[in-house]
């Protein structure tokens, strides 16, 4: 053994660990997508009080919240092959259990876990959009889907962004458990490197730095998105998108001025 703490190694092995950043990113992105999609469904089931489904959703969320993510990973890892075996046995099919890449287990477990937590965030955000706007949208003749896409979701996203950001950061850190189901992500790679030179402490220090930097970057990203999506503090002077439209309209007005361009002042005391 050389030095007690090889701080140079902490930094020099970072590129070697980062080779597995794509795996971590893939895990995170797909699990996030699953989390949002199923989370939205769960939220809608809860909001609309769909019978039966509502109880199932509550049961699912309760289980996910009430058990450690590590246990959920193992249950997926052992449970899915068991289920496939069972199906093979019953239906005489021949699904190959060993052909499932481990990353699938991690994605399913992490995605379902996210969906339970995100569903609450999404539900609260959706319900924060006041009913009056929904009535206005329906009165205009919008379909349910249009109300959701055009009115509810854009506003709910703004409300949910900070919490969804936290949830995503939690997920990135959660992916570090994927090694337990045989996925080689950054954490697994760190452990592999350490296994060769027994510099475990240095490996975890490298990992800590990487995750920390990623988290800070994500925090910044979400701050930016929040600002981007929320209604500005002050009214913007103009927008490029419709400038042409407005110019054309004003030009047509100047070309053919009509009376009634300006509203008459309230002439009487109504």
């Amino acid at each position, binding site marked *: 053994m050389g030095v007690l703490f090889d701080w140079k190694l902490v930094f020099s092995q970072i590129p070697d660990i980062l080779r597995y950043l794509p795996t971590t990113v893939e895990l995170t992105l797909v699990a996030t997508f699953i989390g949002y999609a199923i989370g939205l469904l769960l939220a809608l089931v809860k909001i609309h009080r769909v019978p039966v489904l509502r109880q199932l959703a509550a049961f699912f969320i309760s289980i996910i919240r009430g058990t450690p993510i590590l246990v959920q990973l193992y249950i997926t890892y052992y449970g899915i092959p068991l289920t496939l075996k069972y199906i093979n046995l019953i239906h005489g099919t021949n699904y190959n259990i060993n052909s499932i890449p481990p990353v699938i287990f991690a994605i399913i477990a992490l995605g379902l876990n996210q969906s339970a937590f995100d569903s609450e965030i999404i539900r609260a955000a959706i319900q924060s959009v006041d009913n009056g706007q929904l009535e206005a949208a329906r009165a205009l003749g919008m379909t349910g889907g249009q109300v959701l896409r055009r009115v509810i979701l854009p506003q709910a996203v703004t409300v949910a962004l900070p919490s969804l950001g936290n949830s995503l950061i939690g997920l990135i850190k959660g992916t570090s458990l994927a090694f337990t189901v045989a996925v080689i992500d950054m954490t697994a790679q760190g452990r592999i490197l350490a296994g060769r030179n027994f510099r475990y402490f240095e490996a975890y220090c490298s990992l800590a730095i990487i995750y920390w930097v990623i988290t800070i970057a994500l925090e910044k990203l979400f701050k930016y998105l929040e600002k981007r999506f929320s209604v500005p503090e002050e009214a913007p002077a103009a927008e490029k998108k419709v400038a042409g439209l407005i110019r054309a309209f004003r030009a047509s007005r100047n070309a053919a001025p009509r009376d009634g361009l300006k509203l008459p002042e309230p002439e009487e*005391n*109504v």
Partner: protein
Amino acid sequence: MSYIEIRGLKKRFGDNVVLDGIDLDIEKGEVVAVIGPSGTGKSTLLRSLNLLETPEAGTFKIGGETYQLTTKKSAEKRALRQQTEMVFQQFNLFRNRNVLENVMEGLTTVKKLPKDEAGRRALTQLEKVDMLDRLHHYPRHLSGGQQQRVAIARALAMEPKLLLMDEPTSALDPELVGEVLVTIRKAAQEGNTCLLVTHEMNFVKSVASRIVFLENGKIVAQGTPREIFDNPQNERLKQFLNKINMLESMEYVI
């Protein structure tokens, strides 16, 4: 045969019968004001016509089509809703959209107009409500009066056959009521058919072509402003007008 015919409209909440068989005819270009005590079903009447409530019975003839107000089919509901537009007490503008976008929203999303055409129509309406200088403001940047004017433009841009307005000035500070009433008067003068709930009795007097007095789920009296205010025949109507200090006939002067 009237332009608009409402027949047998019934709506209850639990045991509370709110609309007990409403029949109402409205001619094209008419401005009909609904008055009556609070909690008597004025809002429910308007909301039922737009299917924001689900009535138990009733038909609604408008623009040559007769609609069942009890329909469960969402396509039929949308078809009916596009015949009318609603102006709400609380404005209910889309908070994440600026003034221009608020007015364009129904045109592009529901009517599927191309953006240019929607923009032209929106600007035309916004000009009428005198909001052209606030196109990029969001609802939070506007006063209540300005928000309501935009809401009126949003409704009129859809070219409804009937404009429903439920206490459009009740949520406004007193000094902002005037500008909205001016806007409504203008919409009425331009020939928009309106069904309006309001407590602004002086406004009703000068703008409405007909007044409907609603009480306990029934139309108890109706007539021209003169018939209603100057020469009310119905006892209940007299009591109501007296309560809101709109009756100056001798028998109530102390």
